[in-house]
């Protein structure tokens, strides 16, 4: 099983040095993980390090494809509130 970085990653470099398996690498348009190297930090850390420091919700998926940090979990902004604010800005 391996973690995956998807669209939305802002290339902040926070995860890269923390990975105990050197499975994360710089790429365009965003960082990627090497599925052959990723161990989900098994045996190294209690919590998978990339997803534990990542500041962007929804951009790191776990082994079964679920967002480790779902919307609202890092910023504290309720997703419906975010959606309403975005709709309001679009309508201006």
């Amino acid at each position: 099983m391996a973690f995956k970085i998807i669209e939305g990653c802002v290339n902040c470099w926070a995860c890269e040095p923390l990975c105990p398996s050197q499975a994360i690498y710089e790429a365009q348009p965003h960082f990627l993980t090497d599925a052959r190297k990723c161990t989900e930090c098994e045996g190294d850390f209690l919590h998978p390090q990339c997803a534990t420091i990542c500041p962007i919700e929804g951009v790191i998926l776990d082994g079964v494809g679920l967002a480790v940090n779902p919307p609202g979990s890092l910023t504290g902004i309720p997703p419906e509130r975010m959606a309403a604010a975005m709709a309001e800005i679009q309508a201006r």
Partner: protein
Amino acid sequence: MELKVLGQDTPAAPSPGGGCASSGCGGNSDHLAHLPEAIREKVHNHPCYSEEAHHHYARMHVAVAPACNIQCHYCNRKYDCANESRPGVVSELLTPDQAVTKVMAVAASIPQMTVLGIAGPGDPLANPERTLSTFRQLSEKAPDIKLCVSTNGLALPALVDELCQHNIDHVTITINCVDPEVGAQIYPWVFWNNRRIRGVEGAKILIEQQQKGLEMLVERGVLVKVNSVMIPGVNEEHLKEVSEVVKAKGAFLHNVMPLIAEAEHGTFYGIMGQRGPTHAELQALQDECAGDMNMMRHCRQCRADAVGLLGEDRGDEFTMDKIAEMEIDYGKAMETRKQVHEAIEADREAQRQRAGQCFVSLTELGGVARKETRPMLMAVATEGHGLINQHFGHAREFLIYEASATDVRFIGHRKVDLYCSGGDTCGDAETALQKTIRTLEGCEAVLCSKIGFEPWGMLEEAGIMPNGEHAMEPIEEAVAAVYREMAKDGRLDAQAPETLRMRA
């Protein structure tokens, strides 16, 4: 009210660094005059630490530090935006080598540049290799540039000694609270010892590290400025305590900044409708904290890749592809820089002398009108050098001064085009001019080099006296002169309407 005759009522012998140590002195626009000589020497040409210096000297930030180890409710980590101007936003992320090339190019093109800071767009100390490598190279290649760093403080204790090795003598720590309960409303989480720690527990760790880092820096003789973001309803009362604590621990300057929160920034506070402070609220808190220590009022909350004088951003002139085409002879540039800095110092000294004379003449008022005159606010349009040298219509910000019968005091700045120029957030039919006039609310005069017919009329209508008669004069001298004229005309006898004063 007593009118002080400067140089008579206070035995203020001119210090070797120039200027005057009395607090009512017109030459003391810096409010740093009472600091020990060693500290004044360090900050006298630092635009971020010295209010007077910021008229003359430029700074730049290089965006080498994208990673962060905490989340703040006023920050959105999607940092790449060309339209916004607020901390934590950049257009182009640089490697340390690119950053060094950029610094050399800017220093050669803008000889007034004295300071290089690393401020983000994440936390510089959460990117220790990139940050320290930049400093290491610059301390060798550009020894005439001051190096500074700003940080949230979480990683500070662990890195203090390495920072000191790189000749960094200015550090800014952002400290918004000393109480974890308050902190939990500002910081949703911190990354600490390989865990994401939320709420009060996370805030407590951050606060402990900040305070420890502050103490360690002071022990090692590093100058520490503390930045605090004023968040109405969250920490504005608490910041008075913060000010006392950080002063007791040896921070030399406290910078209380207003929260920037707009929905379009996508931050927690922006989306949740948390408001920033009004000009009056900010000023009142700064005044209260100023009783305890040096208060900074000229901060422009720069982007993490800003270039130029405070309040201006010439970053577009120094993108990596433009720099690649420049030829830089740094040895020669250092010579030029030295000459330019000497000329600036001579200019500043001359302005100080003239300001001193000007304030003595302010006391002539005593003979004209013995009546007590009230203090008032004036707005100033300037492009730098400490002069009234900008057309009203070109001003993107105004400096606000309070003039009274005894002195002229710098209060702060007000931006004309607000932080995000990406969209119109201010309502329907309001013109740019109306917005500008609203920005100047509470001021009774505006000083500029020139002004058009239309704004003249609208300003007058709004109770703000336009004045273009002091073009190219030193700001404080001109403000004092206008105050004197208005006092002579009897326009400053009565108390200003309460609403006017309160909104200042």
